[in-house]
């Protein structure tokens, strides 16, 4: 029996490498990419506890975003605010264990860190028509005044839900559950059909 396990991303079956080859010269309004195999850590703790927030900052090198619907970013880590006592920490694939260890080393008392990397994936939606695709998919107002760059929202996306971070005026990262990734992929294909869809491997 082989001990080598080859991980498969939730959208493995869609074969993005092949689709990227097919669509690479397309003049498309929507760009789609799966940010597979990143490290996802779910962190819970009391944001009004000074020891907790400073411990997280020491471990990650970024201050914890404690204001509602905000995010924080450095080269190595992205932190999304999920709720007043819950954050999603995204690091490069393979870094999740050392990040978790760093958090555990710097935190004491009432907190929780869980590695949820295998349970969800990130879909990057970009392109000049990406906003039009979002307008079809959810009720949330995507205007830049209401949804500025760096803001993160948890919302109903079509018939599933996702956490969405705006990283640029026409670029969004969507954190979606593994089991709903295929649904989202099918939905996004259909919703972006009229604008042209370019897949990035």
């Amino acid at each position, binding site marked *: 029996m082989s001990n080598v396990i080859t991980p498969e991303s939730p959208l493995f079956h869609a074969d993005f490498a092949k689709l990227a080859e097919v669509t690479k010269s397309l003049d498309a309004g929507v760009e789609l990419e799966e940010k597979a195999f990143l490290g996802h850590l779910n962190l819970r703790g009391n944001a009004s506890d000074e020891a907790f927030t400073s411990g997280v900052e020491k471990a990650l090198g970024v201050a914890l975003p404690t204001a*509602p*619907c905000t995010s924080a970013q450095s080269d190595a880590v992205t932190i999304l605010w*999920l*709720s*007043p006592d*819950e954050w999603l920490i995204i690091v490069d694939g393979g870094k999740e264990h050392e990040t978790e260890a760093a958090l555990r080393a710097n935190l004491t008392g009432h907190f929780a860190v869980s590695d949820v990397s295998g349970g969800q994936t990130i879909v990057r939606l970009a392109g000049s028509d990406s906003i039009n695709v979002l307008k079809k998919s959810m*009720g*949330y107002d995507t205007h830049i005044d209401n949804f500025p760059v760096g803001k993160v*929202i*948890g*919302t*109903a996306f079509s018939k599933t*839900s996702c956490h969405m971070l705006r990283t640029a005026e026409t670029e969004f990262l969507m954190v979606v559950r593994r089991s709903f990734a295929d649904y989202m992929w099918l939905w996004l294909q259909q919703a972006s059909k009229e604008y042209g869809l370019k897949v990035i491997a």
Partner: protein
Amino acid sequence: MFEIYCPYCEEHREEEEFHPVGEAHIQRPVDPEALSDEEWAHYLFYRKNPRGLHHEMWVHATGCRKFFNMTRHTVTYQIMETYKMGEQPSVTEGAKDDAK
């Protein structure tokens, strides 16, 4: 569709993101063993169902996943306020006439 103000996300969101959970401010009896069957049944199953102001619990299911409370008028459907768990409503039955 309601536009509901989530007191934790601190903004209005579509009703689609929320689920109603039922009447708010129901306290679990401290000593259930001491209750009669009737009292226990009242705790479990009996709800107010008022015509007018109702304090109810909702959950921001696809957002921050926090439970919170809402004061809503069951006839007009008007949402008077939403407030965090553990807080008391500022709009109550006594102030109903003002709310109309």
